[in-house]
Protein backbone atom coordinates (compact mmCIF):
# COMPACT_ATOMS: atom_id res chain seq x y z
CA UNK A 1 0.00 0.00 0.00
CA UNK A 2 2.75 2.34 1.01
CA UNK A 3 4.68 1.56 -2.16
CA UNK A 4 1.59 2.19 -4.26
CA UNK A 5 1.00 5.56 -2.63
CA UNK A 6 4.63 6.52 -3.06
CA UNK A 7 4.50 5.49 -6.71
CA UNK A 8 1.34 7.51 -7.34
CA UNK A 9 2.75 10.54 -5.54
CA UNK A 10 5.93 10.36 -7.57
CA UNK A 11 3.99 10.10 -10.82
CA UNK A 12 1.76 13.03 -9.94
CA UNK A 13 4.75 15.13 -8.90
CA UNK A 14 6.46 14.20 -12.14
CA UNK A 15 3.44 15.27 -14.17
CA UNK A 16 3.21 18.54 -12.25
CA UNK A 17 6.84 19.24 -12.97
CA UNK A 18 6.39 18.42 -16.65
CA UNK A 19 3.14 20.34 -17.04
CA UNK A 20 3.66 23.52 -19.04
CA UNK A 21 2.98 26.82 -17.37
CA UNK A 22 -0.47 28.22 -18.18
CA UNK A 23 -0.22 30.17 -21.40
CA UNK A 24 -0.57 33.93 -21.15
CA UNK A 25 -3.35 35.17 -23.45
CA UNK A 26 -2.05 37.20 -26.36
CA UNK A 27 -3.53 39.44 -28.96
CA UNK A 28 -2.15 40.79 -32.19
CA UNK A 29 -1.89 44.56 -32.04
CA UNK A 30 -2.02 46.51 -35.27
CA UNK A 31 -1.95 49.68 -33.23
CA UNK A 32 1.36 48.74 -31.64
CA UNK A 33 2.70 47.67 -35.02
CA UNK A 34 2.10 51.17 -36.37
CA UNK A 35 3.03 52.93 -33.11
CA UNK A 36 6.58 51.56 -32.97
CA UNK A 37 7.83 52.99 -36.30
CA UNK A 38 6.58 56.43 -35.27
CA UNK A 39 9.01 56.36 -32.34
CA UNK A 40 11.91 55.54 -34.60
CA UNK A 41 11.68 58.87 -36.35
CA UNK A 42 13.34 60.53 -33.36
CA UNK A 43 16.84 59.91 -31.96
CA UNK A 44 16.78 58.29 -28.52
CA UNK A 45 13.03 58.83 -28.23
CA UNK A 46 11.35 59.16 -24.88
CA UNK A 47 8.48 56.78 -24.27
CA UNK A 48 5.99 57.08 -21.42
CA UNK A 49 4.31 53.89 -20.25
CA UNK A 50 1.27 54.56 -18.11
CA UNK A 51 0.82 50.91 -17.17
CA UNK A 52 2.58 48.49 -14.91
CA UNK A 53 6.31 48.21 -15.50
CA UNK A 54 7.23 44.92 -17.15
CA UNK A 55 10.69 43.69 -17.96
CA UNK A 56 9.54 42.54 -21.41
CA UNK A 57 8.06 45.92 -22.31
CA UNK A 58 11.09 47.81 -21.04
CA UNK A 59 13.49 45.47 -22.82
CA UNK A 60 11.61 45.79 -26.09
CA UNK A 61 11.64 49.57 -26.14
CA UNK A 62 15.12 50.11 -24.68
CA UNK A 63 16.55 47.70 -27.23
CA UNK A 64 14.94 49.91 -29.86
CA UNK A 65 16.90 52.85 -28.44
CA UNK A 66 14.13 54.41 -26.36
CA UNK A 67 14.43 55.98 -22.96
CA UNK A 68 11.47 54.52 -21.12
CA UNK A 69 9.51 56.42 -18.49
CA UNK A 70 7.18 54.41 -16.32
CA UNK A 71 4.35 55.81 -14.27
CA UNK A 72 1.64 53.35 -13.31
CA UNK A 73 -1.44 55.56 -13.41
CA UNK A 74 -3.73 52.59 -12.82
CA UNK A 75 -2.17 52.08 -9.42
CA UNK A 76 -2.11 55.79 -8.76
CA UNK A 77 -5.76 56.07 -9.75
CA UNK A 78 -6.66 53.23 -7.45
CA UNK A 79 -4.80 54.84 -4.54
CA UNK A 80 -6.06 58.35 -5.18
CA UNK A 81 -9.67 57.28 -5.53
CA UNK A 82 -9.56 55.39 -2.24
CA UNK A 83 -8.12 58.28 -0.24
CA UNK A 84 -10.74 59.57 2.13
CA UNK A 85 -11.05 62.91 3.87
CA UNK A 86 -9.71 64.86 0.89
CA UNK A 87 -11.32 68.21 0.19
CA UNK A 88 -9.82 68.79 -3.24
CA UNK A 89 -11.64 67.13 -6.15
CA UNK A 90 -10.12 63.94 -7.50
CA UNK A 91 -9.23 65.56 -10.82
CA UNK A 92 -7.19 68.25 -9.11
CA UNK A 93 -5.42 65.83 -6.81
CA UNK A 94 -4.66 63.48 -9.68
CA UNK A 95 -3.11 65.98 -12.06
CA UNK A 96 -1.33 67.81 -9.25
CA UNK A 97 0.62 64.71 -8.35
CA UNK A 98 0.90 62.67 -11.54
CA UNK A 99 2.55 63.22 -14.91
CA UNK A 100 4.71 66.13 -13.83
CA UNK A 101 6.76 66.46 -17.00
CA UNK A 102 7.45 69.47 -19.20
CA UNK A 103 5.35 69.86 -22.34
CA UNK A 104 6.57 68.10 -25.46
CA UNK A 105 8.69 65.61 -23.56
CA UNK A 106 7.62 62.38 -25.13
CA UNK A 107 7.74 60.85 -28.56
CA UNK A 108 5.30 58.16 -27.56
CA UNK A 109 2.77 57.39 -24.84
CA UNK A 110 1.29 53.99 -24.06
CA UNK A 111 -1.99 54.76 -22.34
CA UNK A 112 -3.38 51.21 -22.58
CA UNK A 113 -7.04 51.19 -21.47
CA UNK A 114 -6.62 53.83 -18.78
CA UNK A 115 -9.39 56.05 -20.12
CA UNK A 116 -11.93 53.30 -19.60
CA UNK A 117 -11.29 53.41 -15.85
CA UNK A 118 -11.18 57.16 -15.31
CA UNK A 119 -13.88 59.00 -13.41
CA UNK A 120 -15.78 61.45 -15.62
CA UNK A 121 -14.07 64.51 -14.18
CA UNK A 122 -10.64 63.22 -15.25
CA UNK A 123 -11.30 62.16 -18.82
CA UNK A 124 -11.03 65.47 -20.66
CA UNK A 125 -8.28 67.01 -18.49
CA UNK A 126 -6.11 63.92 -18.88
CA UNK A 127 -6.63 63.74 -22.64
CA UNK A 128 -5.56 67.38 -22.93
CA UNK A 129 -2.59 66.85 -20.59
CA UNK A 130 -1.29 63.84 -22.52
CA UNK A 131 -1.62 65.77 -25.77
CA UNK A 132 0.54 68.47 -24.23
CA UNK A 133 3.20 66.00 -23.12
CA UNK A 134 3.74 64.74 -26.66
CA UNK A 135 6.15 66.41 -29.02
CA UNK A 136 4.82 67.28 -32.48
CA UNK A 137 4.64 64.06 -34.49
CA UNK A 138 4.53 62.02 -31.31
CA UNK A 139 2.02 59.21 -30.91
CA UNK A 140 -0.33 57.91 -28.27
CA UNK A 141 -1.67 54.37 -28.26
CA UNK A 142 -4.84 53.69 -26.31
CA UNK A 143 -7.13 50.70 -25.92
CA UNK A 144 -10.86 51.07 -25.48
CA UNK A 145 -13.43 48.46 -24.59
CA UNK A 146 -16.42 48.04 -26.88
CA UNK A 147 -18.65 47.02 -24.00
CA UNK A 148 -18.55 47.84 -20.34
CA UNK A 149 -17.61 44.34 -19.31
CA UNK A 150 -14.47 42.42 -18.49
CA UNK A 151 -12.04 42.38 -15.60
CA UNK A 152 -9.06 44.62 -15.06
CA UNK A 153 -6.19 43.54 -17.28
CA UNK A 154 -2.55 44.49 -17.59
CA UNK A 155 -0.85 44.63 -20.98
CA UNK A 156 2.69 43.57 -21.73
CA UNK A 157 4.57 44.00 -24.98
CA UNK A 158 5.85 40.72 -26.31
CA UNK A 159 7.16 42.02 -29.62
CA UNK A 160 6.43 44.78 -32.08
CA UNK A 161 2.97 43.47 -32.89
CA UNK A 162 1.89 41.26 -30.00
CA UNK A 163 0.55 42.05 -26.56
CA UNK A 164 0.23 39.71 -23.62
CA UNK A 165 -2.83 40.11 -21.41
CA UNK A 166 -2.33 39.48 -17.72
CA UNK A 167 -4.96 39.60 -14.99
CA UNK A 168 -4.59 42.76 -12.91
CA UNK A 169 -4.92 42.79 -9.15
CA UNK A 170 -6.13 46.35 -8.61
CA UNK A 171 -9.76 46.93 -7.55
CA UNK A 172 -10.65 48.86 -10.69
CA UNK A 173 -13.77 48.40 -12.75
CA UNK A 174 -14.65 49.78 -16.15
CA UNK A 175 -16.36 53.15 -15.90
CA UNK A 176 -17.75 53.24 -19.42
CA UNK A 177 -17.43 52.17 -23.03
CA UNK A 178 -16.89 55.12 -25.35
CA UNK A 179 -18.83 55.48 -28.59
CA UNK A 180 -16.47 56.16 -31.50
CA UNK A 181 -17.85 59.65 -31.92
CA UNK A 182 -17.03 60.50 -28.30
CA UNK A 183 -13.47 59.28 -28.74
CA UNK A 184 -12.91 61.37 -31.83
CA UNK A 185 -14.27 64.41 -30.02
CA UNK A 186 -12.16 63.70 -26.94
CA UNK A 187 -8.95 63.53 -28.97
CA UNK A 188 -9.84 66.16 -31.55
CA UNK A 189 -6.63 68.08 -30.84
CA UNK A 190 -4.54 65.34 -32.41
CA UNK A 191 -3.52 65.67 -36.04
CA UNK A 192 -4.60 62.17 -37.01
CA UNK A 193 -6.20 59.09 -35.55
CA UNK A 194 -6.55 55.49 -36.66
CA UNK A 195 -8.80 52.91 -35.07
CA UNK A 196 -8.13 49.18 -35.16
CA UNK A 197 -10.97 46.90 -34.20
CA UNK A 198 -10.04 43.53 -32.78
CA UNK A 199 -12.06 40.35 -32.58
CA UNK A 200 -12.12 40.69 -28.82
CA UNK A 201 -13.78 43.44 -26.84
CA UNK A 202 -11.07 46.00 -27.61
CA UNK A 203 -10.50 48.83 -30.03
CA UNK A 204 -7.03 50.29 -30.46
CA UNK A 205 -6.71 53.98 -31.12
CA UNK A 206 -3.48 55.36 -32.51
CA UNK A 207 -3.25 59.14 -32.28
CA UNK A 208 -0.56 61.32 -33.78
CA UNK A 209 0.03 64.88 -32.61
Amino acid at each position, binding site marked *: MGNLLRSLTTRLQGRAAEAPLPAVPRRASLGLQQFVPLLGEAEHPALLDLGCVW*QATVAFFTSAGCKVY*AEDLFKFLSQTASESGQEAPLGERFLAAALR*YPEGTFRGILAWDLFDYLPDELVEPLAAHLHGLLEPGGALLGLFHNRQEGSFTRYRVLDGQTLELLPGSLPLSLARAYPNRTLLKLFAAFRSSRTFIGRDNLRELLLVK
Partner: protein
Amino acid sequence: MWGTKKPEEGTPSHSARENTPLAGAHDLRPLGARPASSPARLGKTLSVKGELAGNEELVLDGEFEGTIDLAESSLTVGPQGRVQADIRAREIVIEGSVRGNLRAADRLQISKSGNVVGDLVAARIVIEDGAYFKGSIDIQKPEEQKPRRAEAGGESFRIAPAPVAAAPKDKLQ
Protein backbone atom coordinates in the same frame (compact mmCIF):
# COMPACT_ATOMS: atom_id res chain seq x y z
CA MET B 1 34.00 11.95 25.60
CA TRP B 2 32.33 13.77 22.66
CA GLY B 3 29.75 15.55 24.76
CA THR B 4 32.30 17.11 27.09
CA LYS B 5 34.68 18.48 24.50
CA LYS B 6 34.42 22.24 24.12
CA PRO B 7 34.48 23.66 20.63
CA GLU B 8 37.58 25.60 19.71
CA GLU B 9 37.37 29.36 19.84
CA GLY B 10 36.82 31.12 16.56
CA THR B 11 35.41 28.06 14.84
CA PRO B 12 31.78 27.49 13.99
CA SER B 13 29.72 25.20 16.16
CA HIS B 14 29.60 21.51 15.34
CA SER B 15 26.16 21.75 13.71
CA ALA B 16 27.22 24.64 11.52
CA ARG B 17 30.27 22.77 10.34
CA GLU B 18 28.51 19.58 9.38
CA ASN B 19 27.82 20.60 5.80
CA THR B 20 30.64 23.00 5.20
CA PRO B 21 33.99 22.26 3.64
CA LEU B 22 37.04 22.12 5.84
CA ALA B 23 38.45 25.50 6.76
CA GLY B 24 41.50 26.56 4.81
CA ALA B 25 44.32 28.80 5.87
CA HIS B 26 42.47 31.86 4.53
CA ASP B 27 39.70 31.24 7.06
CA LEU B 28 41.99 31.78 10.01
CA ARG B 29 41.07 35.25 11.15
CA PRO B 30 40.39 37.10 14.36
CA LEU B 31 37.11 36.58 16.11
CA GLY B 32 34.37 38.78 14.69
CA ALA B 33 36.22 39.62 11.51
CA ARG B 34 34.29 39.24 8.24
CA PRO B 35 35.62 36.91 5.61
CA ALA B 36 37.05 38.83 2.68
CA SER B 37 34.23 37.81 0.37
CA SER B 38 31.25 38.71 2.55
CA PRO B 39 29.71 42.13 2.03
CA ALA B 40 29.60 44.94 4.55
CA ARG B 41 26.15 45.28 6.03
CA LEU B 42 24.04 48.05 7.50
CA GLY B 43 21.68 46.29 9.85
CA LYS B 44 17.95 46.79 9.79
CA THR B 45 17.87 48.67 13.09
CA LEU B 46 20.42 51.22 11.91
CA SER B 47 19.63 54.61 10.44
CA VAL B 48 22.36 56.64 8.76
CA LYS B 49 22.52 60.04 7.06
CA GLY B 50 25.46 61.21 4.99
CA GLU B 51 27.79 60.30 2.16
CA LEU B 52 28.89 56.76 1.70
CA ALA B 53 31.76 55.89 -0.62
CA GLY B 54 34.07 52.94 -0.91
CA ASN B 55 35.17 49.92 -2.79
CA GLU B 56 33.53 46.92 -1.22
CA GLU B 57 30.21 45.20 -1.49
CA LEU B 58 27.47 46.55 0.71
CA VAL B 59 24.10 45.30 1.86
CA LEU B 60 21.69 47.91 3.24
CA ASP B 61 18.98 46.53 5.45
CA GLY B 62 18.43 49.68 7.48
CA GLU B 63 17.61 53.27 6.62
CA PHE B 64 19.98 55.47 4.69
CA GLU B 65 19.69 59.04 3.47
CA GLY B 66 22.35 60.85 1.47
CA THR B 67 24.58 59.65 -1.35
CA ILE B 68 26.19 56.30 -2.11
CA ASP B 69 29.18 55.88 -4.38
CA LEU B 70 30.50 52.34 -4.80
CA ALA B 71 31.75 52.71 -8.35
CA GLU B 72 33.59 49.40 -8.47
CA SER B 73 31.39 47.36 -6.18
CA SER B 74 27.88 46.15 -5.76
CA LEU B 75 25.09 47.40 -3.55
CA THR B 76 22.08 45.46 -2.37
CA VAL B 77 19.18 47.18 -0.66
CA GLY B 78 17.59 44.38 1.31
CA PRO B 79 13.85 43.84 1.75
CA GLN B 80 13.87 45.89 4.94
CA GLY B 81 16.09 48.60 3.48
CA ARG B 82 14.74 52.13 3.04
CA VAL B 83 17.01 54.44 1.10
CA GLN B 84 16.70 58.04 0.00
CA ALA B 85 19.85 58.56 -1.98
CA ASP B 86 21.40 58.92 -5.37
CA ILE B 87 23.40 55.78 -5.93
CA ARG B 88 26.28 54.87 -8.16
CA ALA B 89 27.67 51.35 -8.16
CA ARG B 90 28.89 48.67 -10.51
CA GLU B 91 25.87 46.53 -9.72
CA ILE B 92 22.71 47.45 -7.83
CA VAL B 93 20.03 45.12 -6.53
CA ILE B 94 16.90 46.62 -4.96
CA GLU B 95 14.72 44.42 -2.79
CA GLY B 96 13.49 47.21 -0.53
CA SER B 97 12.46 50.82 -1.05
CA VAL B 98 14.60 53.44 -2.80
CA ARG B 99 13.95 57.03 -3.74
CA GLY B 100 16.69 58.56 -5.81
CA ASN B 101 18.56 58.30 -9.07
CA LEU B 102 20.47 55.10 -9.68
CA ARG B 103 23.40 54.53 -12.01
CA ALA B 104 24.93 51.08 -12.43
CA ALA B 105 27.92 50.52 -14.69
CA ASP B 106 26.83 46.94 -15.14
CA ARG B 107 23.52 45.51 -13.92
CA LEU B 108 20.61 47.03 -12.08
CA GLN B 109 17.91 44.78 -10.72
CA ILE B 110 14.61 45.61 -9.05
CA SER B 111 13.32 42.51 -7.35
CA LYS B 112 9.64 41.72 -6.99
CA SER B 113 9.60 43.21 -3.50
CA GLY B 114 11.43 46.33 -4.69
CA ASN B 115 9.92 49.80 -4.80
CA VAL B 116 11.90 52.43 -6.69
CA VAL B 117 11.08 56.03 -7.52
CA GLY B 118 13.80 57.72 -9.54
CA ASP B 119 15.74 57.64 -12.76
CA LEU B 120 17.78 54.57 -13.70
CA VAL B 121 20.84 54.38 -15.91
CA ALA B 122 22.55 51.03 -16.40
CA ALA B 123 24.06 48.73 -18.97
CA ARG B 124 21.50 46.04 -18.14
CA ILE B 125 18.27 46.36 -16.22
CA VAL B 126 16.20 43.55 -14.75
CA ILE B 127 12.76 44.27 -13.35
CA GLU B 128 10.99 41.35 -11.76
CA ASP B 129 7.22 41.02 -12.10
CA GLY B 130 5.55 42.66 -9.14
CA ALA B 131 8.20 45.33 -8.63
CA TYR B 132 7.03 48.93 -8.39
CA PHE B 133 8.90 51.52 -10.39
CA LYS B 134 8.24 55.12 -11.24
CA GLY B 135 10.77 57.10 -13.21
CA SER B 136 12.86 56.72 -16.33
CA ILE B 137 15.03 53.90 -17.62
CA ASP B 138 18.01 54.57 -19.82
CA ILE B 139 20.22 51.76 -21.05
CA GLN B 140 23.81 52.88 -21.49
CA LYS B 141 26.65 50.51 -22.17
CA PRO B 142 29.87 51.33 -20.28
CA GLU B 143 31.49 52.75 -23.40
CA GLU B 144 28.50 55.07 -23.79
CA GLN B 145 28.55 56.17 -20.18
CA LYS B 146 32.17 57.35 -20.25
CA PRO B 147 31.90 59.88 -23.10
CA ARG B 148 28.70 61.27 -21.60
CA ARG B 149 30.52 61.87 -18.33
CA ALA B 150 33.38 63.53 -20.21
CA GLU B 151 30.91 65.78 -21.99
CA ALA B 152 29.67 66.91 -18.61
CA GLY B 153 32.99 68.59 -17.85
CA GLY B 154 35.06 65.54 -17.03
CA GLU B 155 33.24 64.96 -13.79
CA SER B 156 32.59 61.53 -12.58
CA PHE B 157 28.95 60.76 -11.83
CA ARG B 158 27.58 63.77 -10.09
CA ILE B 159 25.12 63.25 -7.35
CA ALA B 160 22.25 65.65 -7.63
CA PRO B 161 21.61 67.65 -4.49
CA ALA B 162 17.91 67.99 -5.24
CA PRO B 163 15.53 66.55 -2.68
CA VAL B 164 14.73 62.99 -3.54
CA ALA B 165 11.00 63.52 -3.26
CA ALA B 166 11.18 65.98 -6.12
CA ALA B 167 13.06 63.62 -8.42
CA PRO B 168 10.20 62.69 -10.75
CA LYS B 169 9.22 66.31 -11.15
CA ASP B 170 12.75 67.47 -11.95
CA LYS B 171 13.94 64.55 -13.97
CA LEU B 172 13.74 66.28 -17.29
CA GLN B 173 14.95 69.70 -16.39
